């Protein structure tokens, strides 16, 4: 889960990483009040989970409380990269003597935390040339030590008090990374302000799968109503921009289904991953929710492994019996674990079922009005 900047900074603060003095506000008046308390020029920062916020005008500066109130008034209620601004962070403007970058991510290649540092902070790390980026994997058995950070700062070309402060921040950030189940965190820029370092901006993404260990962290995901309800079922839902609703099991199969639909000229409207052995009631509820998105067609593609064909078939039958889908056509492709039992259930319910994904995708695309001709020759290759 991505945390808002102000939440990320609260976490930094708990781990003794210096942050600018400031507070979050959800009204212009409150923003002005915070600026008054700070008693100096402030930055007003839109709290949205989008990159490129600065370029999109999401950060403004105000020399006094009145200007702060005005700037907050402009930002609050506007949208930044299509996301509504509901809160602004009002912070002291820092005197900036330099900008560094510090991040920690989970690195799939080394199967552990990777510290990323650069003396060229303040810009998107993507834009920093590789030779200016230091990467240091961490052995989780022992954690990150100041001596390792000293080797990083030495390669960054920083020394003295700033290097010592950098080591302290990095060690704290690593501790936070592990204890809070973080998968990505960035401090960019980590501002050199006099002899101190301050986390002027912060990104923090926690592991959804570890949320059970952190009941205190509020949920920040920005979801539509349907997404929310499906997530509450413990299933994975992604809204897209086409006209076919897909229910499939497993991320890979879902993506392959979309790829093939696209080949036949149709696009997915959304997809629902019921992988991992979701039970029948959940699937029925999920199909009800999918129907509410009013797709041109619903395509169920299940290659049963841990998901069992009989349970999927039972759900499809019940959905059909209850008329949950209205007049939205249903295309089913069903193979794998308990396939025979599943096909028997569908047969009794009078629901036709494909065994080939190709055929199911073609039919779904056809029903969605796609350009099926384009993929006609594919049928012959197998």
């Amino acid at each position, binding site marked *: 889960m991505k945390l808002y900047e102000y939440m990320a900074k609260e976490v930094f603060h708990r781990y003794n990483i210096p942050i600018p003095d400031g507070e979050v506000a959800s009204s212009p008046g409150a923003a002005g009040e915070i600026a008054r308390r700070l008693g100096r020029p402030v930055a007003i920062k839109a709290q949205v989970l989008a990159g490129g916020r600065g370029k999109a005008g999401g950060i403004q500066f105000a020399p006094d409380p009145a200007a702060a109130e005005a700037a907050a008034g402009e930002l609050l209620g506007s949208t930044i990269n299509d996301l509504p601004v509901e809160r602004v962070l009002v912070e002291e403007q820092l005197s900036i003597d330099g900008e560094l970058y510090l991040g920690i991510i*989970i690195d*799939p*290649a080394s*199967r*552990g*935390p990777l510290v990323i540092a650069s003396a060229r902070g303040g810009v998107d790390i*993507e834009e920093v040339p590789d030779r200016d980026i230091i990467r240091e994997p961490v*052995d*989780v*058995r022992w954690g990150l030590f100041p001596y390792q950070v000293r080797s990083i700062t030495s390669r960054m070309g920083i020394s003295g008090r700033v290097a010592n402060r950098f080591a302290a921040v990095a060690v704290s950030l690593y501790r936070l990374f*592990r204890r809070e*189940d973080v*998968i990505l965190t960035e401090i960019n820029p980590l501002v050199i302000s006099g002899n101190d370092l301050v986390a002027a901006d912060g990104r923090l993404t926690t*592991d959804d*799968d*570890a949320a*059970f*260990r952190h009941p205190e962290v509020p949920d920040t995901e920005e979801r539509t109503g349907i997404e929310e309800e499906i997530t509450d079922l413990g299933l*994975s839902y*992604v809204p*897209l*921009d086409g006209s076919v609703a897909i229910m*499939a*099991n*497993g*991320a*890979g*199969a*879902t*993506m*392959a289904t*979309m*790829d*093939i*639909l*696209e*080949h036949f000229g149709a*696009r*997915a409207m959304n*997809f629902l*991953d019921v*992988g*991992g*052995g979701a039970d029948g009631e959940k699937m029925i509820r999920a199909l009800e929710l999918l129907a509410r998105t009013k797709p041109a067609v619903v395509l169920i593609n*299940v*290659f*049963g*492994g*841990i998901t*069992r064909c009989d349970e999927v078939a039972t759900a499809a039958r019940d959905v059909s019996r209850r008329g949950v889908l209205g007049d939205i056509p249903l295309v089913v492709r069903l*193979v*794998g*674990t308990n*396939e025979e039992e599943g096909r028997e259930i569908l047969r009794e319910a009078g629901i036709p079922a494909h065994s080939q*994904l*190709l055929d199911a995708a073609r039919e779904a695309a056809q029903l969605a009005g796609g350009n099926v001709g384009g993929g006609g020759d*594919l049928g012959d*290759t*197998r």
Partner: protein
Amino acid sequence: MAILVNEKTKVMVQGITGRQGAFHAARMAGYGTRVVAGTSPGRGGSEVEGIPVYDTVEDTVTKHGANVSAIMVPAPFVKDAAFEAIAAGIGLLVIISEHVPVHDAVDIMAYAADGGARVLGPNTFGIIAPGQCKVGIMPGGIYRRGPVGLVSRSGTLSYEIAGALGEAELGISTAAGMGGDMVVGLSFVDLLRAFERDEETECVVLVGEIGGAAEEEAAEFIKTMDKPVVAYVAGRSAPPGRRMGHAGAIVERGRGTYEAKRAALEEGGALVADFPWEVPGLIASCSRD
């Protein structure tokens, strides 16, 4: 022979009294796998589908010589189960459970390295040597024995390919799932290396998907391989920046796109299929070389 498992493999199931554990333990045994035991703390002494249940992994090792564990416990308990298996000397952990916290996976891989154990997963469909041994949740019936090695990040997608191979009367030496999570044990490279050495395997099919850099790393290794590799990568039509169901499919930072992976694999010498059902044809074409 096959890689990692074969007809001598003695499998135990952690979480055997759970809904999934009991169901798939029976399926594995039904397939002919030597499922020697299972564990379920507090349920030791009972049986599941005729398979003896113990409180500890150690018991399954000392009493039955178990050497592979299929881990099917709920995500919050996977770390404990994996550590127990490694400490008990299990050589290969097949972690079926999904939604395992990534920091737990990190710890498991570090401890496995210390303990000399290998890990497939988390979030893997498992591994199958057709006709010999099935450790996982895949539908065994679709796999025919033969000369093709199959390695995949995704379960259902690999079934799709295995099914297509079967219809083309192409058999499989071993099909292994790396697991779909951000941090998994054995990598494409580890498994490709094993297939390169395996006598039964003549060529390898790699099933990838967008996100991460695992396919790019595999592409580098493929350059050094003697055996031909056919690849398929899912996610060509996926919009960038959306989370596609699991953490391994995060597309971000310009890395891990479909185009990047396809280009790297082709440069590495792999034949890349546009659709799952093209894979058998490409195998035939490289066998003709």
